[in-house]
């Protein structure tokens, strides 16, 4: 199973990718070529300790803001038993890297998911989401197959923020004619959120911590 997470800048792709990879002990490919900070490579060792195979640019380039893709990426995708989560950079600029792999992603029936946080500028409504979806599809030469609902305001998110935000995402998904695969929220809200939504709930732990949270 190959799952690709796309979406606009700061929609939550990295947190969700890291959590999915850890939950399923899958391989995580960090294809973020646009973000300088808060990338999944920051928690490489932690992920490896938890049974995740992490594919990254070599260490001497990992802190560069260069579009580096290692040959291992294609190798991993060609593996018949591939169980991979791909964390892609934000917007169409970040998604452009997927174009290189569009053919194999199609052959392997990869799930290409759009992460939507309605509290982010430019994905607060269907119009914005539609635009970003089209731009990503064009840049990446792939078709989005579903939505991840990720309504949050960062660390201070309340249960009502999640529920009200999810209602927006439901509308957005309806307009885009795409299924919501799951909703993600912090672990401590997840047990409550399940009572209010009718899609699967994935509780996540926050890995992209600021220096004062370490």
């Amino acid at each position, binding site marked *: 199973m190959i799952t690709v997470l796309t979406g606009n800048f700061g929609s939550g792709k990295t947190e969700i990718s890291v959590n999915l990879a850890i939950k399923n002990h899958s391989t995580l490919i960090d294809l973020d070529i646009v973000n300088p900070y808060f990338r999944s490579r920051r928690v490489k060792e932690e992920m490896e300790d938890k049974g995740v195979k992490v594919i990254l640019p070599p260490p001497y380039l990992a*802190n560069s803001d260069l579009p580096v893709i290692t040959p291992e990426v294609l190798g991993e995708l060609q593996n018949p038993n591939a169980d991979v989560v791909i964390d892609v950079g934000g917007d169409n600029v970040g998604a452009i890297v997927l174009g290189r792999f569009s053919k194999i992603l199609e052959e392997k029936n990869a799930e290409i998911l759009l992460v939507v*946080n309605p*509290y982010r500028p430019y994905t607060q409504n269907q119009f914005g989401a539609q635009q970003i979806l089209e731009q990503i599809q064009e840049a990446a030469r792939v078709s989005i197959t579903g939505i991840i609902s990720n309504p949050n305001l960062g660390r201070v998110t309340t249960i009502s923020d999640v529920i009200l935000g999810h209602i927006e995402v439901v509308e957005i998904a309806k307009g885009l004619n795409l299924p919501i695969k799951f909703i993600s929220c912090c672990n401590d809200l997840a047990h409550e959120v399940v009572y209010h939504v009718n899609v699967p709930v994935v509780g996540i732990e926050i890995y992209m911590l*600021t220096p*004062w949270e370490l």
Partner: protein
Amino acid sequence: MSKVLMKGNEALAEAAVRAGCRYFFGYPITPQTELPQYLSKRMPEVGGVFLQAESEVAAINMVYGASGAGARVMTSSSSPGISLKAEGISYIAGAELPCVIVNMMRGGPGLGTIQPAQGDYFQATKGGGHGDYKLLVLAPASVQEAVDLTIEAFDLADKYRNPVMILGDGILGQMMEPVEFKLTENNELPVKEWATTGKKGRKKNIINSLYLQAEKFEQHVNRLADKFGEMEAKEQRAETYLADDAEILLAAYGTTSRVCRKAVDMAREEGIKAGLFRPISLWPYPAYALQQVLGRVKGILTVEMSLGQMIEDVRLAVNGKVPVDFYGRVGGMVPTSRDVFDKIVAFREVL
């Protein structure tokens, strides 16, 4: 929805738009590129101009031109880019033009690193460009504060006819926090009678920083100095945290102050009376506010992502009254709260 989740860079850009800024000239550099990127989308929506110049030098001179014509204008960069802009910044201060300049610092010297740093404190507060000028320098510590200070920065720039710098670092630019934009669109901007808006019967306005007569230029520089004196008296800003009964006072700004605040909490849990002094204006340095909290302080620990730059202003402010120690990380490394806590414990031993 009233609250949005934004990166510091994006929020700063939106704040500029809310403050009535309609012109942005810049050149991309990590870790501030989201700011121009956001404005490249946003400016056309509000009938503004976003222009990626051919270089930082070009961008800052476009700021000079737009400001001279009376526009609210902004540019942004990160450390090496600000060095390139330094000449233009001196010209803008010399010609008394208001503008807002954002520096999201990265590690230096040289091309350095794309990771966060605070090594441009001297450049921001003590010059950077040539001549006797000062920038008003504001250092936000959260995304919300970045928004509020940016909106205010445009007013301050207009009030003093002087460039204002927002000094952050890569962490502030890249991290995401919820923000609220309190102001509605500011449509009524102050009239700039000095701007080159077309003569139309009034006396000629000239924007200039060149004076061939020394006597006249001395008068000009002295007049600027009077203005800086007024800014020094009126624009000092600082915040304290648990400083009233503190025996060990941390001094830190921006991102580092967030790290220190947590370290203060850790120290308090261990029964150590620690507190935090956080300058919000770096120039003028809030010396008065610092002197006010010295009461029980036995020592000050300055924490920076540099080899020790703000510490000089701390020492000037306390003038030998208490010992001042230093802890810093450089090269893009960020101190953790645990590191600072350990340093507090060690510092207490020797006091």
